């Protein structure tokens, strides 16, 4: 991509500023931690101060994880439907039945089965509560040991997924319609906004990697590109229609990477498999040595795809959340002056990352498919 020169100047300056800011934070966080430990030492067991302390990690992880309710504003949550497949029976109820409990303390009894929710996961409830009033058995790491029903709930991520599918359908069907209406004419409106992106996917992603065979894989590449891009951006919206971390969820990236994997495997020609199982042009011992490596390579490529998208998007969310959380960690309004501009800066970078990650996922998919269908002469 040719946009590097646009960023070159300001980007470097921003990186310098950001590095200085990070260095400053490291020092002050370290100082803060020292103060904390000394404080704790003075208080003794320090139970009360420990409880009050803002747990940034827990907070961020809670925000990027899936949820059975959708936060609107303040203490208002929309309870989402819970659909369970438990002991060969479909059980449905609403998340509101848990009364905002997320610690396995409220038991919902439905169709003769009892469920609790702990850390946004549904478990079969234990017969009796433990010493903390939780209806689960905990292991030494405070993880529930109870069995889990199959959870097909419409969670926050599932709702976002359905919403994004609907929006993508509406957008692209209307674009297709305007192509039909304005046949042979120059694009207009939404059409002219999206046509360069479609052409970008075709000319800069599909054609260089797939050559004349690109037309067969265009539907997949376009769908995956726009799905990832749109959901990346939707994830950056902090309030209701957004707020979910769909493309930063390992289940979603796993499915997408699996699609690329399946397309690669099912379209691989004999040259592709030949290169994997019997590498041409190397001595026989080398062929035998390379075979397992290449075989592992088939799987590492989609796994890398899966981890890359998941990690990039999740990391971006955590970074923004962490910068915002600094205000609560330091418990001072003065931190806002620094953390809000930097959260905005990271937000702007995330907007770029939203596009770049969609681009990278798509171009690597095209590359892998291209390797599988490439013709050798």
């Amino acid at each position, binding site marked *: 991509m040719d946009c590097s020169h646009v960023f070159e100047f300001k980007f470097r300056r921003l990186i310098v500023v950001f590095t200085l800011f990070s260095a400053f934070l490291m020092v002050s966080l370290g100082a803060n931690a020292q103060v904390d430990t000394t404080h704790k030492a003075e208080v003794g067991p320090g139970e009360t101060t420990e409880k009050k302390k803002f747990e940034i990690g827990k907070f961020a992880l809670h925000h990027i994880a899936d949820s059975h309710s959708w936060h609107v504003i303040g203490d208002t949550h929309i309870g989402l439907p819970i659909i369970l497949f438990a002991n060969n029976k479909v059980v449905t109820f609403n998340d509101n039945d848990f009364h905002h409990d997320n610690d396995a303390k409220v038991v919902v009894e439905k169709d003769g089965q009892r469920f609790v929710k702990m850390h946004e996961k549904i478990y079969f409830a234990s017969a009796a509560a433990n010493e903390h009033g939780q209806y689960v058995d905990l292991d030494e790491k405070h993880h529930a040991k109870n069995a889990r029903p199959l959870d097909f709930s419409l969670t926050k991520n599932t709702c976002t997924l359905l919403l994004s*599918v609907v929006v993508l359908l509406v957008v692209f069907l209307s674009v297709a319609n305007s*192509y039909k209406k304005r046949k042979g004419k120059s694009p207009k409106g939404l059409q002219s906004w999206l046509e360069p992106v479609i052409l970008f996917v*075709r000319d800069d992603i599909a054609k260089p990697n797939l050559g004349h065979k690109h037309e067969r894989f265009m539907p997949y590449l*376009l769908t995956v590109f726009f799905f990832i891009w749109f959901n990346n951006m939707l994830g950056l919206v902090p309030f209701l229609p957004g707020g979910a971390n769909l493309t930063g969820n390992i289940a979603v990236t796993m499915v997408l990477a699996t699609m690329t994997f399946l397309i690669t495997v099912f379209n691989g020609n004999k040259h592709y498999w030949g290169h994997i199982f019997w590498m041409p042009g190397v001595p026989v011992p080398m062929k035998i040595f390379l075979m397992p490596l290449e075989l592992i390579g088939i799987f590492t490529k989609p796994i890398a795809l899966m981890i890359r998208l998941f990690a990039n998007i999740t990391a971006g969310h955590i970074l923004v959340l962490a910068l915002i959380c600094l205000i609560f960690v330091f418990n001072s309004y003065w931190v806002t002056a620094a953390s809000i501009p930097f959260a905005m800066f990271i937000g702007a970078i995330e907007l770029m990352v939203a596009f770049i990650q969609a681009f990278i996922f798509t171009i690597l998919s095209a590359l892998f498919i291209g390797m599988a269908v490439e013709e050798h002469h």
Partner: protein
Amino acid sequence: MDLLIPEVGLVVFQTIAFLLLMFVLTKFAWKPVLAAIKERENSIDDALNKAELAKQEMARLTSQNEELMKQARAERDEILKEAKILKDSIVNEAKTSAQTEGAKLIEKARIEIENQKKAALAELKGQVSALSLDIAERVLRSQLDDKAKQQDLVASLLKNVELN
């Protein structure tokens, strides 16, 4: 870690939703859109090619026109040259014929003048002789009565006339 463990529900929903999205978009969006883009690109290419051809045709016609002009100009020059030669020859011919004609006329006039002069001289001679005879007669009548003298005089007179 919980983050790294995919939830079954979301995997199922994602698979179904994505496949559905891809299917519907392929059928109703990607194929018509890509076909329309390709068609438009082809038509643009066509138009450009046609424009290029028209330009070449124009150039060809222009050069042809120039060739024709050049030929016409050469032809005109040729015709003018021929006409000039023709004109010159006609003028020369006319000039020579006029000269010969003039010379002829002058010759004729000279001969005529000569003839007239001869006739006039002859007439003059006759008259002079008649006059002389008359004068001599009168002189002789009045002066000469001697026949011999008369005959000598006449003879000497005639002799003198012949000498003149």
